[in-house]
């Protein structure tokens, strides 16, 4: 028994060492396969059904993969798509199942312990959505009200900090997903829905009557959303970052932004109508991979 345990330990250690030694680029070159992590339903990446994925981050990643193919000088590079959830995305990148996670993952220090992030091309703003006829105009008006937000998102933490910082009293109610949280607002079980502005805009755009809702201009917090890659793989990170830098420089990113946030998008041809925020423009002007904690927050 003991020998088996020792053998198993050595095998695991060896696997760990092997994973460390082989860079992602080497792996992609030798296997001819790159695995892109995709999301079923999130702001920057989602499915159209039948294994077809799309979205702003999806497009950025397609360009990155094309650049990597050129850089490696391989003739054929198969792209595999691995759907990920907010629960399994970090482990799947850690263990090498996913090479390039192109969903809507907030770059923060907690995740930075386990994975690395590419250069940010989108800064999310946390905002408040309310009914159009509501008399709530700013965060302070939420005192004594009920606020909906979605389980498994970082907006909850933003809300808590504001609660303590501004000494507000409100009750929180968690929707199990964004559609559920929006339903809480729609049915009047919540007075406001606090979430990423892109998600609020998408839910309002898809509502039966979009004019019944409005997004307040106040920004509660900003969060860099970034493409996730395996930790401590400087060669791969450099290749990804170089591709992103080139995409920013040639204006590809700005065009993709316009395509996804200003034009009608599939599957329902709704328009989010969300011009690039100052924070996003700033990220394009000065490319960086700073986590949320190092970003300038509103009101600081």
């Amino acid at each position, binding site marked *: 028994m003991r020998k088996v345990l020792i053998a198993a330990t050595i095998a695991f250690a060896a696997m760990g060492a092997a994973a460390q030694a082989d860079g992602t680029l080497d792996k992609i070159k030798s296997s001819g396969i790159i695995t892109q992590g995709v999301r079923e339903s999130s702001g920057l990446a989602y499915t159209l059904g039948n294994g077809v994925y799309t979205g702003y981050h999806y497009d950025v990643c397609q360009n990155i993969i094309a650049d990597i193919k050129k850089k490696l000088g391989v003739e054929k590079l198969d792209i595999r798509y691995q759907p990920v959830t*907010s*629960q399994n995305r*970090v*482990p799947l990148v850690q263990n090498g199942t996913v090479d390039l996670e192109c969903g809507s993952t907030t770059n923060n220090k*907690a*995740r930075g*312990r*386990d994975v690395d992030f590419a250069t940010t091309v989108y800064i999310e703003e946390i905002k408040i959505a309310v009914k159009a006829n509501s008399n709530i105009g700013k965060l302070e008006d939420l005192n004594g009200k009920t606020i*909906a937000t979605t*389980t*498994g*998102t*970082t907006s*909850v*933490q933003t809300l*808590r*900090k504001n*609660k*303590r910082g501004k000494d507000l009293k409100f009750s929180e*109610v*968690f*929707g*199990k997903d964004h559609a*559920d949280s929006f*339903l*809480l607002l729609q*049915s*009047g*079980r919540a007075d406001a829905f606090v979430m990423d502005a892109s998600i609020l805009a998408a839910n309002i755009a898809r509502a039966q009557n979009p004019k019944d809702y409005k997004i307040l201009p106040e920004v509660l917090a900003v969060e860099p959303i970034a493409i996730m890659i395996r930790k401590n793989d400087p060669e791969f990170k450099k290749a990804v970052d170089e591709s992103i830098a080139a995409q920013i420089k040639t204006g590809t990113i700005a065009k993709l932004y316009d395509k996804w946030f200003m034009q009608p998008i599939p599957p329902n041809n709704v328009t989010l109508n969300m011009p690039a925020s100052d924070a996003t423009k700033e990220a394009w002007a000065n490319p960086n991979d700073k986590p949320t904690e190092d970003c300038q927050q509103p009101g600081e």
Partner: protein
Amino acid sequence: MTYWQGIWDRWQFLWDDRGDGVTYWQWMFSAWGYTVAVAAVSLVVALAIGCLVGTLRTVSQHRVVSALATGWVELFRNIPVLVQLFLWFFVISEIVPGMRGVPSFVLACCALGFFTSARIAEQVRAGIQALPQAYRYVILPQTFRIIIPPLTSEAMNIVKNSSVAFAVSIPELISFAMQTQEETSRGIEVYLAATVLYIITALAISWFMSSREKRARVPGLSSQGQGAH
């Protein structure tokens, strides 16, 4: 040594502040409280309705009454519990006047309680019919004594089933686990902790009920304590 240190470090998040002055372990125990509260209130609802409906199903001289009771059982045991929960939350509370303001806690307890009441009703009916017909008017107390083992299973089931309440925004253990693993990236530890709390809750019920069972056993009717579960 470093291996155990590493494991210990991974549990440190329990003492972290989640942002508003509440630590994760405090939140976990509050979530456990919600789980226990949902399960307990639902169990009371289920026992009250289940005993009534189960008894009415055996009243053969009033056809309408027993048919209504049978209808109740078939309605609530043939719809998945999650669907029932959504029906209460999104349909009944929308179309029935005055139901809009009802807290989701109450709706969850109704859904879970009614669902389980159908199952308890069947056990009560089986318990009554297991006894000789001649004892019809003195058998109810005996029935409750011989159906304690299946009732124990139902009580434990209701604790486990209470996890569906997260779907209607009740901040119970699963809701805590899903949110905390997102905030702390400590999925393994969070789900392990939730698992242990569920096991503790279910075992506590099991121990309590088996102590009741020993005291309430009917000599000659129960299976003499041999594998009644």
